[in-house]
């Protein structure tokens, strides 16, 4: 189980995250929603161990991140929001680098890398450096890299960004199966449709605090209000019609 207790992060005087607590159980897919600047990426960076909380603690399968960050991070696979990787390498070279850094035996790398490349439709481009890969292709490489060591927790930041319809459907099915196999999946997104289709639970973040935490199934059971409408209400989003009108007036005027 992943446990986050009272996560708080300050950047100088800016409070990015304010006492955020949640749990993630094996077999669960949790969608993490929030407007831009609400603290989603900060939470993701804290969960994967790239940042340390100012206050609060994280533990995964009984290992506290503060006590043993290496053992904690070993159980995590991460797909970042932007497909940032060393693009001068080929996909195979990048996956080999990641596998070696994670100390996977050569036999395992030999068995997994070509299969992942083929299944993620990267096999034809395996001899090319990733400099000219599309965003979707890079995203697929990162998904392969995140799965390579068979992690217990998968953290994905906007994983469907840049993926075409087929790749998106494949990833959705894969995430469902991984969850059914007992893995924990935490994914940050702006896409309500994906949350509704995929997640068992949703956490909505607003101004660094949890504004809503609810099971997705409860939305259907409790009434007609959609996830999007609930999100707008929970995050106190303004009425956008006047803003759109003002933009239109600005570009139409002198």
């Amino acid at each position: 189980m992943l446990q986050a207790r009272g996560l708080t992060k300050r950047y100088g005087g800016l409070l990015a995250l304010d006492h955020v607590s949640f749990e993630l159980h094996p077999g669960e897919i949790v969608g993490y929603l929030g407007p831009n600047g609400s603290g989603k990426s900060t939470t993701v960076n804290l969960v994967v161990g790239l940042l340390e909380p100012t206050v609060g603690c994280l533990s995964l399968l009984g290992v506290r991140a503060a006590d043993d960050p290496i053992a904690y991070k070993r159980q995590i696979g991460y797909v970042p929001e932007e497909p940032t990787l060393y693009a001068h390498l080929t996909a195979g070279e990048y996956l080999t680098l990641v596998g070696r850094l994670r100390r996977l035996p050569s036999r395992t790398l030999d068995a997994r890398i070509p299969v992942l490349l083929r299944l993620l439709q990267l096999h034809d481009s395996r001899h090319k450096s990733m400099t000219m890969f599309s965003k979707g292709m890079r995203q697929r490489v990162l998904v392969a890299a995140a799965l390579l060591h068979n992690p217990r927790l998968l953290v994905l930041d906007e994983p469907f960004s840049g993926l075409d319809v087929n790749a998106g459907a494949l990833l959705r099915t894969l995430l469902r199966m991984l969850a059914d196999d007992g893995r924990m999946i935490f994914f940050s997104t702006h896409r309500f449709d994906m949350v509704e289709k995929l997640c068992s639970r949703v956490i909505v973040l607003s101004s660094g605090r949890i504004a809503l935490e609810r099971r997705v199934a409860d939305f259907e059971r409790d009434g007609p209000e959609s996830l999007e409408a609930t999100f707008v209400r929970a995050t106190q989003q303004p009425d956008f019609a006047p803003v759109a009108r003002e933009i239109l007036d600005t570009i139409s005027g002198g």
Partner: protein
Amino acid sequence: MTVRDRPEVVLTHHFFTALFDFGFLSDEGAEAFKRLLLGGLALAIAGGLLLMRLFMNKYGLLAGAPEDYAREVVADHAFLMALPMWVVAGAMALAGQSLFPNEVDFRILMAEPLSRRLIFAAKLAALLLFGGLFIAGTHLGLLPVAALTLIGSTSIGSAASTAMAFLASSLLASFFAAFAIVAIHGVLVLLAARHRLLAFSGVVRVVVIGGLVLVLPLVLRLPASADAFAAGAWWLVLAPPAWFAGLERWLLGDTASSMLALQATAATLATVAIAVIAYVRLYRRFDRVTFQSAVRTTTPDWASSTNRRSPAAPVRHAVGRFVSLTIRRSVLHQGLVVGVLAGAGGLVLDSLLRANWRVDAAVDTELIWLLLWTPMTMMFVAVPAMRMALSVPLDLRANWIFRMTEDVEGRAEIAAAGVRVVLALAVALPIALIAPLQWSTMGVASLAVQIVEAAIGWLLVESLMANWRRVPFTCSYIPGKGFVPQMCVKAFAAYVTFTGATGLALLASLRSLAVAIGLTALVGGTAAILRWRRARRAREMGLLFEDEMPADVYPLRLYAD
């Protein structure tokens, strides 16, 4: 719309500033780089003042000796023309990727309502401004020195005509240097296969920069080449500064220099013509620089990057391969590594060329000393420079993968990977390059010398990389953390001490095998202790991903706590 808001002005300004863009530096690093440049400028001014002092003495003495003056001034003017040529060619080569509109320009600018003609014209204008800036800057800087050489010029013509001839030839020489680089890139862009263009362009840039670094000692030797100019030495036809010095003589009425003058004129016209043709051809076939296919690697299959057997130190293996692939494929890092090695080679090339190889080497102490000094000098330059080259980052945002996968033993392995690269390129390579010369002069005894050299090189690397806790190319980089002139003084003192002490040690090793064994054991043992300490420090302290400025203020703590 003001002139500054006009699209052609905005675009030219954009291209011009892009030529100075060092994308690998963070904001803090860019600030530090500016300080480094200012330090470099201070050094250049100091060097210029020293040069003035030397020329003042020299031309003061020559004022009363017209024949000597006429002989000496040719070589000095060739030198004063070569310096701006070198600087301008270096600047153009560094900006090589931006000499022609590229794919990024196409993707961003062609989506805007801008004509292709405007984009090309703005690029060309920016390029001319860039080249012009360096030409004007170097000529203005050298003006006082050049003026000194006119003392006594009445022996070959009026001071005004000599000055005019020198200025015209020197400016033409700098234009030639600039257009030569543009022409080389132009030919490459037009002729190279499209999917090879990026790789070829990088290789050309690396070769040009490496070549420039290598010839620098030869440029500095020009003032001492008056006799060669007077005798019409064979190598003058191969040295572009000599062509333009010949042009200057020819303009002043010396018909003996007409061949060199012709060579200078023809070369300048040819490079200008090639550069213009390349631009015009590219204007018509803009697709040459757009939609370049990705670099294809020579890797036969993904499996070639792994071994069937798991390596004993997988992280070190992975980082070593990452470094090797980065040096092979990143133009910036390839340029840095080649520049470093060429710099180290250039430093000793001059001495090796001047050595008297015809004497009986076995008894020539001077030659033996030179061959013992050479690898030590190359190491002294290459080790810190290679360490710096490994510190220059590549896509900092991508380093999260190293931060995610960091473990205690891996830290030591990563530190070891960086050290191994420096050992291979900055220690083993210089030893291997000089070994045949040592073998041919010292015989089998040189083997003992090479073993001691390797031990000293190892100790040097371990000393300079004692605090190395980085994955190469993944940590932010702040250049010039110290005050440049002060660093230069320290480096010079260290250089004299290091080469002097190690030269004596090597000479003793050459004469006594027991000394060689003893020194190897002592130096190698010390290096092994430093290696152990480095690994322990890396394990305990973790990897470094953010470079830091040293504290500027060291409190005296004269108060009680």
